[in-house]
């Protein structure tokens, strides 16, 4: 295997060594001063054995993954990051496709699978003082898994340069002291925040699967979070907790789902002194743009121009992106092209031009067909979410013997609205009236059910069952 040997590309460890103060990863129940990595290791002396290999990072926790990623970048030939919800059954196919010949697991945690690989290293997760063993500096390939709902996830290849290209100076995301994210850092959206923290001289508060939202917010408050990121669903869930009042971030970031005006306004009301921005990114297309004017959608002028190397066009209502931040290719997927011949990635995210702004309306694969009329559930959710009593909504299709499908909505009301059946009927009729005023008839939900909560997938996105 030919290795991409280079003179001195900056690796993640360089950014760790290049700061004056101590910086931390805080996990629920554990923390590590990761700047100690400039004179120590979390890998128990095994880094030399991992050098030049294709390494699977299969730790139980984000904390161990974070340490391993810093140590492996520039040393391993390739890093494949195993997300927390990856299916064990898919592992053999992934290991073969990415030519994985080493794995990093975690001390004291149950292993996620039996790995029969030439090298198996254990991450502590803590740092022991050790001399750094010199080794060849490589331009490490970073492989992320997509969050496809069925089948073996696709493996998407990035470089550190591409992953960190969006972190240019002059954005409200700059100047973080303490980053936090509701994402898992082993997914693209979370990895962006991990990298922003490491490169930007900040500490990072990690999320923890299954941790109550109020506890997570409590930790974020304790560590003085200044910059916080999550999906709109993450944020809607956070807004349902009184503990949201205990944090005071200077920058609030949304990505991964459509940021509608309701959630942007809701966050502005709770954090009047913060910059509220939403970003568009995907595992394949990378980060395309940030929007910091507080409005949903993005200026139409973004399309058709080259902004910091990012070019966008709209083909058949679907957003296509070409930039140095997009992934270079899929790993091990024969013949499947990530981009078209001109280098544009089709995101499958559908947009609509309204005035001088494009608005996201839904996913290409998520369209519901109502007697021949096509509907995106997300555009209806955006309207329902504008209703003052609504916290969040999920629109789904319901079979109809007459028109094929209808749309129905599951709605979570704001906490103060949990009340009597009579009040519920009143609110339901009012939401329907609201929908009828804003939407054509076939997009108005045939029924609305009130539910105490809506499931959010491990990716941070609202869980949609595909019919």
């Amino acid at each position, binding site marked *: 295997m030919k290795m991409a040997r280079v003179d001195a590309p900056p690796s993640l460890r360089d950014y760790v060594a290049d700061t004056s103060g101590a910086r931390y990863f805080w996990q629920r129940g554990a923390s590590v001063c990761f700047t100690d990595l400039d004179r120590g290791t979390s890998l128990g002396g095994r880094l030399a054995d991992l050098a030049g290999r294709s390494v699977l990072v299969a730790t139980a926790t984000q904390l161990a993954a974070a340490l391993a990623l810093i140590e492996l970048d520039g040393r391993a030939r390739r890093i494949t990051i195993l997300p927390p919800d990856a299916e064990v059954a898919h592992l053999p196919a992934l290991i073969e496709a990415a030519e994985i010949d080493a794995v990093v697991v975690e001390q004291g945690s149950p292993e996620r699978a039996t790995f029969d690989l030439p090298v198996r290293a254990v991450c502590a997760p803590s740092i022991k003082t050790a001399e750094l063993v010199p080794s060849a500096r490589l331009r490490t390939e970073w492989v992320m898994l997509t969050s496809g709902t069925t089948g073996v996830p696709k493996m998407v290849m990035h470089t550190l340069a591409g992953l960190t290209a969006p972190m240019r100076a002059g954005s409200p995301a700059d100047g973080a002291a303490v980053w936090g994210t509701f994402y898992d850092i082993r997914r693209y959206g979370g990895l962006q925040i991990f990298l922003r923290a490491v490169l930007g001289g900040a500490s990072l508060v990690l999320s923890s699967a299954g941790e109550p939202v109020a506890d997570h917010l409590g930790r974020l408050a304790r560590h003085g979070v200044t910059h916080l990121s999550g999906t709109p669903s993450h944020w809607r869930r956070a807004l349902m907790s009184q503990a949201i009042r205990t944090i005071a971030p200077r920058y609030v970031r949304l990505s991964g789902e459509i940021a509608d005006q309701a959630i942007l306004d809701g966050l502005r009301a709770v954090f009047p002194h913060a910059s509220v921005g939403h970003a568009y990114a995907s595992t394949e297309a990378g980060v395309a743009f940030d929007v910091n004017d507080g409005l949903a959608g993005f200026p139409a002028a973004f399309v058709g121009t080259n902004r910091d190397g990012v070019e966008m066009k709209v083909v058949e209502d679907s957003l296509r992106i070409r930039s140095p931040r997009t992934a270079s290719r899929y790993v091990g997927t024969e013949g499947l092209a990530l981009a078209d011949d001109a280098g544009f990635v089709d995101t499958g995210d559908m947009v609509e031009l309204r005035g001088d702004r494009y608005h996201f309306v839904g996913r290409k694969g998520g369209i519901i067909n109502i*007697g021949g009329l096509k509907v995106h559930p997300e555009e209806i959710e955006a309207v329902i979410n504008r209703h003052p009593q609504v916290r969040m909504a999920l629109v789904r299709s*319901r079979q109809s013997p*007459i028109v094929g499908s*209808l749309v129905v909505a599951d709605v979570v009301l704001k906490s103060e609205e949990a009340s009597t059946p009579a009040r519920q009927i009143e609110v339901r009729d009012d939401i329907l009236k609201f929908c009828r005023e804003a939407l054509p*008839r076939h997009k*108005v939900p045939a029924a609305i059910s009130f539910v105490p909560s809506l499931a959010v997938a491990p990716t941070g996105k609202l869980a949609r069952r595909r019919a």
Partner: protein
Amino acid sequence: MEDVAREHGKILAPLDDDLVLANSGLDSLGFAVLVARLEDTLGVDPFTAAEDAFFPVTLGDFVKVYENGAR
């Protein structure tokens, strides 16, 4: 039926058993919503449950489908 018609901005013909549904003022979307609402209230959707495809012509037939479906 009146609720659905009002919500959909339709004017309903006077309702009686002989009213031909096609002339009732409700279109197929209106009927689809009506059938979904009735299923939520009555717990039965006789159109999906029926083995043979059948659609009532008059309002009387429509009511009868539900009476049969409820048994």
